[in-house]
């Protein structure tokens, strides 16, 4: 396991070494979360690299990544722990056969770690396992009662099992909570976390991300793709393309042997970028041709200036 970075600069280079291009705001917030041992709440549009942060931190710090994908109705048994009832029943029968009738001893014997099946949250703070990065992904998909389960974990890095006792992390896990804001996360959770809104990157950073994530894309195409997508994000759309879509799209165009943007190829691959029919219908054709023209002109000017 690697030591935690000592400064904002070191945090930024730790992320960069794993191919994550963060702006200084995000790097500072991540550094603070590591130094202060506080959970990090990342909100932002889908496809802006929120989940990736946790993966990159785990890889960069040599910790194991524990991931909990949230969904409606997620409960303790699926998120934290579950008792192995079948084996407990067998243990009771065996104890009876051996003539054990003392209820106190019976209770002590079947509520032990042996019968406690850890799920992601318990596994993340298990003192017998190496330190972890805990990713609680898309918390907005879970319901409010689940957020309440999380409060103890996020505040003290411990889980209390009524029949067993309190299990506390030996080394506090690095906790990353993400939300796409399909529902507002409760204030109580927000107050325990450091907060950062992950925005769409600017053109320079998006080019750097593309170069790092899709190295096979020709430089000219990559610059034009970024210029086009950046323009698209100021168009009148219901849902803007995220960075993940930019990477996919650049890959798709390369796969189709495109070396520069052409309106025809853009029209054919628009479904990689935009996921709503209204948006595609609005942009396809004339608007695409105009945006492609602008994007190509911008890249040409930048090349001339250089």
């Amino acid at each position, binding site marked *: 396991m690697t030591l935690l970075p000592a400064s904002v600069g070191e945090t930024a280079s730790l992320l960069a070494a794993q191919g994550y291009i963060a702006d200084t705001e995000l790097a500072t917030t991540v550094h603070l979360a590591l130094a202060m041992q506080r959970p990090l709440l990342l909100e932002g549009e889908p496809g802006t690299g929120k989940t990736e942060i946790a993966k990159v931190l785990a890889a960069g710090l040599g910790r194991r990544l524990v991931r909990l994908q949230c969904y409606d109705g997620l*409960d303790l048994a699926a998120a934290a722990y579950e008792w192995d009832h079948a084996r407990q029943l067998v243990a009771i029968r065996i104890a009876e056969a051996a003539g054990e009738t003392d*209820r106190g001893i019976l209770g002590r014997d079947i509520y032990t770690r042996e019968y406690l099946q850890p799920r992601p949250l318990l596994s993340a703070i298990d003192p017998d396992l190496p330190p972890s990065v805990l990713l609680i992904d898309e918390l907005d998909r879970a319901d409010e009662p689940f957020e309440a389960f999380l409060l103890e974990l996020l505040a003290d890095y411990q889980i209390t099992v009524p029949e067993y006792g309190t299990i506390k992390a030996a080394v506090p896990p690095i906790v990353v909570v993400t939300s796409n804001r399909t529902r507002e996360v409760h204030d109580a959770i927000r107050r325990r976390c450091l907060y950062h809104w992950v925005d769409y990157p600017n053109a320079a950073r998006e080019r750097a991300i593309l170069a790092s994530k899709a190295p096979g894309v020709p430089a000219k195409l990559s610059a034009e793709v970024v210029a086009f997508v950046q323009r698209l994000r100021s168009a009148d759309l219901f849902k803007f393309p995220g960075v993940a879509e930019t990477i996919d799209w650049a890959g798709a165009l390369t796969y189709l042997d495109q070396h520069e943007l052409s309106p025809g190829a853009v029209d054919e691959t628009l479904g990689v970028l935009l996921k709503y029919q209204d948006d595609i219908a609005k942009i396809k054709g004339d608007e695409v041709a105009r945006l492609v023209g602008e994007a190509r002109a911008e890249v040409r000017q930048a090349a001339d200036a250089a």
Partner: protein
Amino acid sequence: MTGRLGANVVQFARLLRRAGLRVGPAETIAAQEALTQVDIGDRAQVRIALRATMVHRREQQEVFDQAFSLFWRDPNAAKQAAAMAMLDGRPDPEAKKAPPASRRVAEAFAPKPSAPQKPAEEAPPEAIALVASERERLQTMDFEAMSAADIDAAKAEIRRLVLPLDLQRTRRLRPDPRGQVIDLRGTLRQSLRQGGEILEIARRRRVTRPPPLVVLCDISGSMARYAQILLHFLHAVANDRERVQIFLFGTRLSNVTRQLRHRDPEVAFQMVAQIVPDWSGGTRIGEALEQFNRLWARRVLGQGAVVLLVTDGLDRDGAKGLAENMDRLHRSCRRLIWLNPLLRWDGFEPRSQGIRAMLPYVDEFRPVHNLASLRSLIDLLSRPAPARDGSWRMTA
């Protein structure tokens, strides 16, 4: 941490509180701790450190950034900002360009304005119960035709209304002896009390709860005469249940949920009045719905929400963009109910352009002009939602 910087953080937290951010001692302590972890000579790092610890929502970031640049520029900034706030009343070409957040921050710097307060004089003790016949009369009287005294009585009635939405099955279970699902963990715990013998099987059942409710209420000129009563209705709804979001719109859309959550209706309405810029103005329903669809729909319409749209459908923009946005709204929620005060006239026909554009996309179309109609609305909401067949029903 040096004492001077620590004291400044406390001062800054006080400023943020006055600008409307919820910054408590926990945030202040965290902020001071964060400052020990960054390079204090680096202004950008200080800003991010304070923001990550003191701001919990994206909406607060702009206010924070404004406050930060004013407060941490130089120690006299506070005085300057106070002076700016004093000058605010005069025509100032710069003031118009300033983003709305700067005004809130400037106000926070200024001497503390008196918080919205109840009128000083005590209201006369309210009549405990209405005489039966009077109640009867109130039920059917049009809100528009009510006198001040009638309105007071109607408000008291509205406060007694509760809104039972049809219950939704969740995926959560809770103990119930007659439940459908066997609870192994509970059974085992019980059996231990009986020396390991299973005498009884513990059971659990699914929890049901009301779905989220989103209200979009028109407060333009043509709706003004209903606005007072409707606000009381909305206040009752906001305080009656969890998971309610309330929006007002005329030409712009405002989320007033937090304000309406205040227990005292008078205080709540004063707070609403302060943040809503377009009382009794024109209506741009299409534009307001577009704003809602774009900024809020994904955030508040999850988990099977029911939408109440309160408007007369008289649109200033000639129904521009209305059909598309109604269509989108209808597709993003489980049930879309339109409350229209114009429906009180028998033989009402959807002749206005706006109404015709909206009708194909609503699940229910209801009058909302007197207490009886509010009551029948409540009955409707407590019934399970009918299946969508793509056509609207007129249910008066």
